């Protein structure tokens, strides 16, 4: 048996540490992302959403948007940023791992002296970085609009409300959780289309549907739903912060009433939900990728 230092190879090569290999994986995956058509498409979608909001607010001048500085960010950012985040998560994380199997790119990288965990974490960071670039673009457009209305409407308020800073932070953490979830499903399936489809269904429809069924109709707080936790991104921009539980009774004739219950996660609760989703899904995704076979 040949004795061999773990990091030494032949011809003066010295295999880098796993941490350094994370950086290598991240660098080239990010390069691949920003040159890809998907980045361009995501950029265009973000610009379309921002342009539509810009045009509608400028043309229709809805009171909810323009009554105050905080109201503007609550209506604009609070309502739309989670959608942009989910799209970015799906675009960059939806097939990040399954694509390695389906497109056979894994056969190029995996049979090298590099741990799968280094590749996974590197790819995760690259996807998160690419999605963050989109997130920052959307943030800049939002602030640009806010600054414009702040300068043109009397009594609108000046500067950025401090709540917007919190909302930005919560949204960025939410992006990490969405990415973790996308990577989890991406590691679960070998087909890119199936992993993307499952992520889309769950993030765009599934979670919302379950949340509404559970809270509105059954009256149970949906603390186990990621999108419920993400409510803090918009809620923090409301003054006062929405109550934890709101029961609405609606009469609909003949003395009958219909009762719905709406819950709002507190900031610590929301952060806990988002944080747990991020940690659990990212780790589970990594474990799945470690065990997945290139058959």
């Amino acid at each position, binding site marked *: 048996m040949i004795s061999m230092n773990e990091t030494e190879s032949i011809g003066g090569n010295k295999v880098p540490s796993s941490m350094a290999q994370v950086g290598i994986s991240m660098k080239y995956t990010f390069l691949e992302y920003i040159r890809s058509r998907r980045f361009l498409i995501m950029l265009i979608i973000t610009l379309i959403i921002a342009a539509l909001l810009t045009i509608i607010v400028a043309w229709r001048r809805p009171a909810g948007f323009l009554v105050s500085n905080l109201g503007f960010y609550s209506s604009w950012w609070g309502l739309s940023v989670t959608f942009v985040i989910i799209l970015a998560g799906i675009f960059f994380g939806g097939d990040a791992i399954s694509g390695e199997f389906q497109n056979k790119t894994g056969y190029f990288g995996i049979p090298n002296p590099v741990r799968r965990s280094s590749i996974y974490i590197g790819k995760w960071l690259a996807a998160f970085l690419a999605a963050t670039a989109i997130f920052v673009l959307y943030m800049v457009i939002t602030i640009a609009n806010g600054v414009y209305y702040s300068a043109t409407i009397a009594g609108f308020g000046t500067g950025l409300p401090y709540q917007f800073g919190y909302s930005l932070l919560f949204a960025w953490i939410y992006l990490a959780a969405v990415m973790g979830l996308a990577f989890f499903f991406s590691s679960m399936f070998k087909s890119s289309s199936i992993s993307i489809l499952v992520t889309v269904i769950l993030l765009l429809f599934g979670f919302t549907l379950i949340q509404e069924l559970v809270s509105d109709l059954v009256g149970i707080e949906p603390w186990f739903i990621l999108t419920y936790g993400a409510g803090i991104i918009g809620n923090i921009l409301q003054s006062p912060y929405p109550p934890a539980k709101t029961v609405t009774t609606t009469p609909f004739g003949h003395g009958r009433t219909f009762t719905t219950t709406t819950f709002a996660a507190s900031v610590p609760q929301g952060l806990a939900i988002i944080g747990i989703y991020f940690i659990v899904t990212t780790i589970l995704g990594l474990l799945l990728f470690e065990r997945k076979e290139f*058959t």
Partner: protein
Amino acid sequence: MSLGDVPSIEAVKLTKQFGSFVAVSELNLKIEGAKCVGFLGPNGAGKTTTLKMLTDLIRPSSGEALINGINVHTNKKAALASVAAIIETPEIYPSLTPREALTMIAEYRGVPASEIKKRIEEAVTEVHMNEWIDKRVGKFSKGMKQRICIASAILSDPCILLLDEPTNGLDPRGMSEVREIVKSLKGKKRLVFMSSHLLSEVSEVCDEVAMIDHGKLIVYDTISNVTSKFSGGANMVEVELLRPINPQLVTQKIAKLSNVTSAEQTNDTNLRIRFSGGLDAQEGILSDLVKMNIGIISYRVAASELEDVYLNLIKETV
């Protein structure tokens, strides 16, 4: 490992099951030293599965895959530190250029930063892809991508190469170039373990052959020994000559050389010689032929001979 160490690949009771299907069954195989070993077997025999277990693309159900004595599954980084592998036909991220993709592999493998540029250019030159080095891979044909994969395998100067049908997807010129690369690696004291369906290719570049069928090893030996053991004790070599040979010389002199059992002329410049004995006999005949000054430009174990052996052995296991 250092250049002085002997590279080795070992399968110890290596088994892989997919449900009830046993792809590789208690495979025991140890390959040591600088040489080229052909890995032969029909479709579904377990060749690619074995190579995948040797590169941690899949996990063994039981047994061990060892590279230089290190378990690939439990200590992949150390085991693959001096190994390069091309398994199936890898795809490269389409938006990267060959230079970027190869830099990524060089960085993973720890090629010194000061040498990366030079080594990439040398590797790309060797596979004749210089013109394409800064073009995006997404536009490349399958053969061009395979050339880049071969460049990725040689750029870190590995001591062991695991190649799964390396000429797959290449045009005849590309196939010939890959064979030359493999031959040159043998000259650099590297261990090459390659699966192939092309028996002529294995005959040309390999020293030894391992045959597998239904996940079990049938034979592992030198090509010469395998052909002599399994083809009635006679080996066959093909000789290519620079100029036409006098037929009388074939029947009266060559056919009567020591160990030669028969000699026939297949055309003006090609001979087929059957002989008994092993590598010593093969070397002796070559030496005698050279002394006859008949213009030998090629002397190799006949592919058809290996093919006969292969078909016989595989048939026996069906």
